[in-house]
């Protein structure tokens, strides 16, 4: 049987579903508005289900409900939480989606707690029993829920603080925070007199301090280097400089990187400033490497010289669509030290033109290996 309370919420669900679909069809399917309306539908459905589940707080239909309601409920702050959630939702619609999602969560949490509280208050004339009933219905979600919120709050604010300060002070702050936690723990454990109120005061203050610092850090933004790195994308393939010199980021700290050692078609060596190659199944050194079109193929580069070298593949030139400028096509490995090796994986979609054959070269060494794509 559907109770009056749940009817209201199910009605809300239906209405918001319809308007969400209309909104998607008529206005914009990927807009925040549609998400908002779906969110509203979801929370309506959930609260409606809770109301149905607890029969609007009526345990007994009929004669037994009399008397139960006369005991009255305990004072509840859930309506306020619920209202606060609604306010957050509205604010979120106007501002950022994070606030909106937070609002939905508060709305659902408050609504569920409210209806359970309401139901438990009317469950019987026995307050103790009512508390038991409430606990059975809701504590299974309260414990993990609160614990998760606690974890989230600490992790979020702590990470904001470390993100805002310089890279060097991050570990120091981390040590300080961890030590503080340990010290407080040891102090409380060894001084039994410090228990009780003081513990609560200390922890509340600590969390407030963390939240304050975190909020401040979040508002002031991440440290400068991170913003720069994010904007410039240092490691993007288009930033590779394939010359003889080390480039700032691409060659930074990357001397001995080997990837997939198995399955290389050919190995290109530099020895005494000269380039030569060996290929699978071929007995002699080769000056041409054939690789199938459009097939990811790996070629290994092995530097046998004392100075650092890198392998460069030249794949003709092409017009850049955006600018219309003709640019060289190709890529390179990182600088490789003596007796180190690196692998280059290539996928070449077209054969070379006669004017611009493909080749492998090593800046600073003589000789080239022809690359044929049949």
């Amino acid at each position, binding site marked *: 049987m559907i109770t009056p309370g749940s009817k209201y919420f199910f009605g809300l669900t239906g209405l918001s579903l319809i308007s969400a679909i209309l909104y998607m069809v008529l206005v914009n399917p990927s807009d925040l508005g549609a998400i908002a309306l779906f969110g509203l539908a979801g929370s309506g459905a959930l609260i409606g289900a809770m109301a149905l589940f607890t*029969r609007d707080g009526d345990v*007994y239909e009929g004669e037994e409900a009399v008397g139960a309601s006369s005991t009255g409920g305990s004072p509840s702050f859930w309506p306020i939480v619920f209202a606060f959630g609604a306010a957050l939702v509205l604010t979120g619609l106007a501002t950022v989606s994070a606030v909106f999602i937070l609002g939905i969560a508060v709305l659902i949490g408050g609504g569920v707690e409210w209806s359970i509280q309401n139901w438990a208050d009317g469950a019987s004339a*026995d307050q*103790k*029993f009512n508390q*038991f009933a409430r606990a*059975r219905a809701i504590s*299974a*979600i309260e414990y993990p829920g609160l614990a998760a919120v606690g974890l989230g709050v600490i992790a979020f604010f702590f990470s904001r603080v470390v993100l805002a300060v310089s890279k060097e002070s991050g570990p120091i702050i981390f040590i300080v925070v961890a030590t503080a936690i340990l010290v407080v723990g040891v102090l409380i454990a060894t001084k039994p007199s410090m228990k009780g109120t003081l513990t609560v005061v200390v922890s509340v203050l600590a969390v407030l301090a963390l939240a304050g610092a975190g909020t401040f850090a979040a508002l002031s933004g991440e440290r400068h280097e991170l913003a720069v790195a994010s904007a410039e994308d240092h490691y993007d393939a288009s930033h590779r400089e394939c010359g003889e010199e080390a480039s700032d980021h691409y060659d930074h700290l990357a001397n001995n990187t080997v990837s997939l050692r198995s399955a290389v078609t050919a190995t290109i060596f530099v020895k005494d400033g000269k380039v030569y190659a060996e290929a699978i199944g071929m007995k002699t050194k080769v000056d041409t490497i054939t690789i199938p079109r459009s097939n990811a193929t790996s070629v290994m580069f092995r530097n046998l010289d004392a100075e650092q070298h890198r392998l460069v593949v030249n794949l003709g030139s092409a017009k850049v669509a955006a600018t219309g400028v003709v640019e060289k096509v190709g890529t390179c490995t990182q600088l490789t030290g003596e007796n180190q090796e690196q692998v280059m994986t290539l996928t070449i979609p077209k054969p070379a033109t006669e004017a611009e054959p493909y080749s492998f070269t090593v800046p600073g060494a003589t000789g080239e290996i022809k690359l044929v794509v049949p």
Partner: protein
Amino acid sequence: MATNELPISSSQSLGAVRRPVNTKGWREWLFTVDHKKLGIMYGCVAFTFFIVGGIEALFIRLQLALPDGRILSADKYNQMFTMHATTMIFLFAMPMAAAFANYFLPLQIGARDVAFPRLNALSFWLFLSGGLILNASWFLGGAADGGWFMYAPNSGPVFSPSNGVDFWVLGLQIAGIASLIGSINLIVTVLNMRAPGMTLMKMPVFTWMILVVQFLLVFSLPVITVALVLLMFQRSYGATFFDVSQGADPLLWQHLFWIFGHPEVYVLILPAFGIISEVLPTFSRKPLFGYPFVVFSGASIGLVGFGVWAHHMFASGLGPVSVAVFSMATMAIAIPTGVKIFNWLLTMWGGKIWYSAAMKFAIGLVVLFTIGGLSGVTHAVAPSDTQQTDTYYIVAHFHYVLFGGMVFGLFSGFYYWWPKVFGKMLNEKLGTWNFWFMVIGMNLTFGPMHILGLQGQPRRMYVWTEARAGEGFFNLGFWNMVSSIGSFILAVGVLFFIINVIKTTRNKERAPLDPWDARTLEWLTTSPPKVHNFDRIPVVHHLDEFFHRKYVEDETTHVMTQVAKGEDLVRAEEAAADADIHMPGASYWPLLLSIGVAVLGMGIIYGTPIMVVGALVVLFSSFGWVLEPSVPEPIDFDSPSHDGHTKEIASLG
């Protein structure tokens, strides 16, 4: 539940959050934590999936009966063989073994239930959700189409664009969690809850084999879980694990899959070995020949089974050294397997063999499995395997092992234990028909596949062509037709079993308490057993305790004399029943938790909001579970006097 000092109806005053104590009707099954009820549910669901998988197999054989078959499209055919294998392995063979293990393992070791009854229920419900999710894909855009081995990169989002593989991944993940929980539960049960006096070497072989299987599962399932997680991340969240253009290695999947996949083969076959190791001694009236050898060969099959996975990959380009090592390891595993077969034959040697239906199926296993084992040795020779792998010869091999071996073992178990579970005998005559149709059908279906394979017909082809069929005795056309006809004979064989079950259910006649003159503890109680299994926990002195309570051997002449009847022993136990037996109460949480997990999984396919809802349900039900004592408290019951003040219970614990 058997507690008679407590009131029997559940507390009304707690409204919807009351505890399901003393449920009746469908609720009795839905919220049960009783290992026997769960075992029966496992069995029913698994058998249903057996029918589903069988129908898929018949479609495959119809398609291949003639060249250029047109029954199925290429796409449907690929889905069909993928789901046939997946269904038979994960939704029939494993849960059917779980059904037997759940039901008989506590009975065989003289325990009242498994160690964690609610986890047991959770396993079942998770398995059911996994199975339903797997099969739901048929109706939601097409099933998985990459083969049960689901090799990367063919399982990637581009090469398998429907949601089928996503459903497959999720279904297997969830069924995998179910098996993992179940295996931990059963290991603890066996190790911790044996009846007094039952040392490990006095345990029935079925229990032993189940124990080995559970260890295999505990250590192999996490590996497939990793593989499935990687695939899921790739398909749903764009990860690059099997993206070759990023330098990925497709063999990673193969290694992870087969490190799980090969122990899985033993997971499938060992329970059947266990079953017939009970059936053969019972019907030969002799103890198992070389009990410790059978036990240790089972354990060593399990152990070596972890070291042979790459024999599924002889053609994939491993180096010659790995190939040689895995080739040798594979041959080594033939030795303990051979030991088992010899021991079964020697068990019968010198016996007094009663050819009941159960015994027929057990003998069927010994013979058919031997054929499968011998063809298995032919592809332990790696170079020879490169000619045979991925042809019908392999299909023939593993169907002899799995159908001739495992399925026959399970059917033997059905006939042997049916009177124990349902208190009625399956019809022996229909059983004989069932057996012969299955033997003939099975050999007609899978025997010709040896020829097809050696003649070069590859597996997983939706059509074969006249142009490559050849002529004469070994031509593909004739043998494909024979195989297809055989599959229908096989189906008729299974139909006989279903008819037998229906007939037996209608039959009113009760089975005797000890119809087979059996040997192990599960017969030392009523049929079907009471909720608490044993009225008194038995004290064990012998391997085959029940038999030795019935018969006494003369020290000098070795003549066996019957000193008691099974019925009398059971009655004696009833008379000496323990007074105060507490059994765990029914619970909503396992069911609710498994629904939560299923919703969570669906969220991975259909969007994060659904996932959040699923996660909330999972959190709620797992903590609800934690906060609920396993045995009901007084507050969970209504007081027997219906005076209207039942809510005011003074003591709240």
